[in-house]
């Protein structure tokens, strides 16, 4: 029992001592000041800060504006998905589906 407690305490201390490899900011500092050191901290400390984010925002996943670079990534992903669908529709000779997917691709390409 005692050993278990000590072990728990040690892991807690280990978490506190964890430092972001990019900026050197520690989890202990985050707990003390409530700030993070750099964008990478979000990734590095993510298992520990998710609960905190949930508590203050009630949600965990971003909704809203994207930087333009992300818009392109999103668009390309969608385009790839649609092309796969088109391929399978062509394979199945489903002409109605081909027409439908083609018009979806056209529409996606029109919006920049």
């Amino acid at each position, binding site marked *: 029992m005692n050993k278990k407690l000590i072990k728990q305490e040690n892991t807690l201390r280990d978490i506190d001592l964890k430092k972001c490899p*990019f*900026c*050197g*900011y520690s989890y202990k500092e985050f707990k003390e*000041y*409530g*700030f*993070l*050191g*750099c*964008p990478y901290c*979000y*990734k590095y400390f993510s298992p520990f*800060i998710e609960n*905190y*984010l949930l508590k*203050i*925002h*009630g*949600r*965990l*996943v*971003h*909704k*809203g*504006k*994207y*930087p*333009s*670079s*992300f818009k392109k990534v999103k668009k390309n992903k969608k385009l790839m998905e649609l092309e796969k669908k088109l391929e399978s529709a062509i394979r199945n000779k489903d002409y109605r589906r081909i027409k439908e997917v083609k018009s979806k691709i056209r529409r996606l390409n029109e919006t920049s």
Partner: protein
Amino acid sequence: MKLLKSLNFRNIERNTRWFSSNVYSDIIISSRVRIARNIEGFPFPLQMSEKQAELLLERIIDAIFSKFKSRKKILLYSEKLSYIEKQFLLERHIVSKEFVEDGLPKAVVIFPEEKVSIMINEEDHLRIQGIQEGLNLMKAWKKVDEIDSLLDEKLKFSFSSKFGYLTSCPTNVGTGLRASVLAHIPAIFITSKNEMLFSALEKIGIMIRGFYGEGSEKIGNILQFSTSETLGKSEEEIISELESVVKLIIMEERRERERIKKSRKLRERIVKEIEKIKRIDKINTEDSFSFLSFLALAKDLNIVSVRMEKINKLFFEVLPAHIQLKEGEILTEEERDFKRCELLKRQLGEICLKDLQRELN
């Protein structure tokens, strides 16, 4: 001692007037929207070295100037500003308290036509904020959104597909957006409706703060109501939610003003409070806020005729750095109190007092 020699602050004063007789401006003085952005490859300001901060500052300023070549803009480096100049920008809500404090090299770029300003190296690398007169949150957001989208073409903002825009403080992560209004609600205070209303607002996540926002005290009957959640809601959702809350506050304030209208005792108190200005020759900021607050109420109850725009403008002109800017020299507290009283009497004295005589008779 003369001040403000290098910069034309009068020009800034003229160019950043966002109070006018507009949407709900009898109660809402201004609407503000700000977003936080950080640049990929740099730690947040808290973890930045002085050298990194200088490098980033120049990079951001270059981006702004190359992207907005033809737009009217004013660039101010914080280290080149005097104490009073910084206070002036703070009073005007163009910069924040953190910006005024010592630390890393910082700068602010003001776009007077868009009513947008960009703080660099404050808590985040960029804080883009728009201020509009009255209740005009969506317009403020549209202006900020436009500038943000254009800067996005030049700068790589830190972003995660899960958490959204990454910010120094996790309370801002996601949209990085905070929307707020500066509301003047004297009737709610006079009829003691404030506590009930405020606890209801706090329960739905609305933050209530003083005139200068975070960490500031209430001055006069002016409070700032702002949103707190930034993650998991779109910008438009956050803004329209605040807008509906603000409309409720406006309704409440109007209802209480109606009640005051009916009470002769309260009307008399308002007249007495305004009349006090006749007998004094100096006044501090707080008392002048309360004077202006009663005046606004009197205007609304048709006791005096004065334009609301003028009163909203005076709420700023009575502030210490504004007074010193106008005089063009550094004044002691007592000197400011005399000048402030002079200003109020000159601006309003005659019209008001004549009207008041009629009300009392």
